[in-house]
């Protein structure tokens, strides 16, 4: 694998985006690999976390953003807790996902973003999670309509663990405030990620 070092990728662009949005000093990483050693999902990642940090240092956004690494991060914070250089690696992984989902870089996963969209829509509209609607919608959109229906889903319903009626915020005024809040957040997020008016 050959990579042509480009100063603009190292000094600005991708690496700078990551450092700005995650507020972490990526150059601190000295590649000890403790994050990769403890990561419970590193076995499934194309590049383990320590290698991802190196790729950010060198500005290799094409390669890193088309890999599954950040999407397989389960946010267990093991890496952050044990990092000897005090880098919040989990937050860096979050940042990669935030940037991708905001459309600034490539999205290389087709499960998590769909789930995230449905999940947040559910909160936006009802204030809480509406499981069955959410699971249903997720299964439909991810083209796997019968995932987890048998036997787990059915058993869940039989045990009364999943309700068919959404739990709503009872106060309609609060609901409208909630929807307005999400609108404001989206605007601010765009400004922040694309550095408009910042």
């Amino acid at each position: 694998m050959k990579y042509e070092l480009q100063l603009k990728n190292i000094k600005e662009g991708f690496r700078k985006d990551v450092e700005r949005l995650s507020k972490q000093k990526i150059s601190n990483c000295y590649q000890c690999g403790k994050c990769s050693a403890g990561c419970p999902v590193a076995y499934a990642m194309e590049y383990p976390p320590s290698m991802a940090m190196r790729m950010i240092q060198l500005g290799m956004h094409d390669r890193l953003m088309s890999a599954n690494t950040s999407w397989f991060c389960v946010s267990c914070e093991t890496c952050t807790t044990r990092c000897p250089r005090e880098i919040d690696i989990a937050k860096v992984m979050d940042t990669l996902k935030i940037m991708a989902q905001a459309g600034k870089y490539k999205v290389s996963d087709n499960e998590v973003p769909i789930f995230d969209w449905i999940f947040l829509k559910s909160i936006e509209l009802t204030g809480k999670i509406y499981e069955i609607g959410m699971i249903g919608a997720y299964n439909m959109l991810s083209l796997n309509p019968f995932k987890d229906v048998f036997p787990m889903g059915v058993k869940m319903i039989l045990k009364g663990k999943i309700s068919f009626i959404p739990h709503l915020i009872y106060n309609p005024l609060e609901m409208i405030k909630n929807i307005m809040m999400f609108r404001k957040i989206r605007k601010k997020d765009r400004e922040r990620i694309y550095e408009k008016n910042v």
Partner: protein
Amino acid sequence: MFKVAYFPGCSLSSTAKEYDVATRLVCEDLEIDLVEIPEWICCGATTAHITSELTASALPAKSLIWAEKHNMTITSPCSACFSRLKMAHINMEKDAELKKEVEEVTGEKYNGKAEVLHLTRVMLEKYGIEKIKEKLKKQLKGLKIASYYGCLMTRPPEVSENDRVENPMIMDNLARALGAEPVKWAYKTECCGAAFSLTKTEIVRKLTGEILKDAKACGADLVMVACPLCHSNLDARQPEISKLLKTNFNLPVLYFTQVMGLAMGYDYMDLMLNKHFIDPKPLLKAKGII
């Protein structure tokens, strides 16, 4: 009687109803007044912080602001909700700009005064383990309990503020206080794959499988948890994991308030133990607890 702002979280009103019920029962006995935050909204869970930093802070902020206004410690029995509440509090403390933005979108002011504690700490530290012992009706003799803490209740340390990060003992101490035998095992803080339950189920099966394997190998009769997400992975997914690993774990997974409830004399149906996929009845009968 002391008042605590209660943030049950979405799971406790659906998939983990039994956790909510058991928690309320136990707290009533302990004379802890759980004041449910009116009109609380979802904490955003993992989804929020991997989608937008602002959302991840704004959603919990509403509850934090309510607790601050009413001068109450805010608690959640769900590790994920607790972690998000505390994380939002810490992030706003560290990042003045973020705090300003949160105040703008929520339209309310936050002074950074809310105290966020996980339910285990409210009960075992604020209330006190000795006082709990006084309320017990029976001892859970002979029950080997593996306490599973998972990620969000323990990490990162500035959020959890637990006794220690790598080998927390707070729930083990509770198990001992209840008369049970805490199991020494290695996977008590390993990740179960939580957020991937729906999206990347294979990962959950593998990680949870390893946790169950270690608990079983270390001789646990049951696993005690304090998080509905861990519970659904360890319990609801247990049959399929057993099948996958060609074994039968048959390891009941109980919420810690349910285990406390048992020692306080509540019975099987009071604590809604029937809701679990792995029925703890045979085990509890064998040990003479019910």
